[in-house]
């Protein structure tokens, strides 16, 4: 799925730029020159959308894996007698 995407308020999603990204293994990479006059280049590779947020243009939207169902064996409670 490419292009503009809208995230459902109930669905978590990961975003990654579709073009112009120098791929690294890190989630966020920031390069800062020692000289204060040099340009600062920020690379944001992944962003997790919060409920209600809309993905910006030119990103790939990936559905987050569904959480593994949690099986509660027993619930402790105040007894019936």
């Amino acid at each position, binding site marked *: 799925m490419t292009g503009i995407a809208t995230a459902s308020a109930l669905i978590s999603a990961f975003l990654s730029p579709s073009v112009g990204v120098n791929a690294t293994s890190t989630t966020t990479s920031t390069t800062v020159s020692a000289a204060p006059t040099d340009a600062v280049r920020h690379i944001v590779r992944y962003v997790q959308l919060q409920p209600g947020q809309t993905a910006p243009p030119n990103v790939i939207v990936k559905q987050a894996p569904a959480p593994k169902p*949690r*099986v*509660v*064996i*027993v*619930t*402790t*409670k*105040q*007894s*019936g*007698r």
Partner: protein
Amino acid sequence: MARALDLDDRPATEQVAGASGILSRSMALMGGHVGVHLRPAAGSDARVAEADAGTVLRRISAWADRLTRFTETSELSRLNRDPGTAVAVGPTLAAALDWGRYAEGLTDGIVDIGLLDARLAAEEASAANEPNGVSGTAASLASRSWSLDRRAHGAIVRRPVGLRFDLDGIGKGWLADRALDRLDRHPAAVVDADGDVAIRLDPGMAWSFGIADPRLEAHDLAVLRLTGRDGGSPRDDGRFGLATSGTSVHRWDRDGAVTHHLIDPRTGRSAKTDIVQVTVLTRTAREAEALAKSVVILGVVAGYELLERVGVDGAVLMTDRDELFIHPATLRWLA
């Protein structure tokens, strides 16, 4: 005579092959439900787990029939009716009374199985809309004056005239622990005695357990994910006990005053407490049950001191101010 089991009639093989791989069986008992949950060993015959679950439920039913105060034919009721001051009892009742005596020491006397008359007075006063309770001093003195002479088969109970026993506050956890001892061959086993839960998990096993929210039906306050331990010390044998007590289920509002079923042995009346519900996680279900009830009776400050003094694996306390206190030992288990 063992009563008919209210068991799920699906074939065991179907349940074991399910997504969870856990076999569960339950029956209506002790005013609630008792459940057995097993993970059979890999490659084992599912019929073995099925048979073990049924056997354990029948044993719990038989033990409960001896210990209940709600039937006239139980051994406990016969003891309570007997006018004698020295009465012979069988091994199951003797063991339960022995545990009650131990629980009294564990909780500095807050657990007191000699308070049946105080509890009945609270219930009857509630029904009649009268002040509840008997003399606290009389109740405490009477309950501390009984003794148990263990014999090869059972014991002799020695007590003052008229002293009657109530195992409701300590019996379910004790039954759960006793039943769990019969399920050693399974890698994971749980006996749920209507909310008082005995648990054993082999190393590598991890099961989740909910803590019911007393304010919302079918909601959990928290979920504890317990894991089997390595057995490097006697304390790390993979056994846990989980129990919850509180004042929000058995309570009566009378003229603006709230009474409930948990009797404070220091007053002989329903405990005046700022706690709505307590859950305790420790090594056995019987200790968890006794401690949870004691903390409710004592209130937040003294109750928390008791938990610190005894040492527990976790505790969650809810107050009547809607505060939630989580004992630090709980944090490692929170899912």
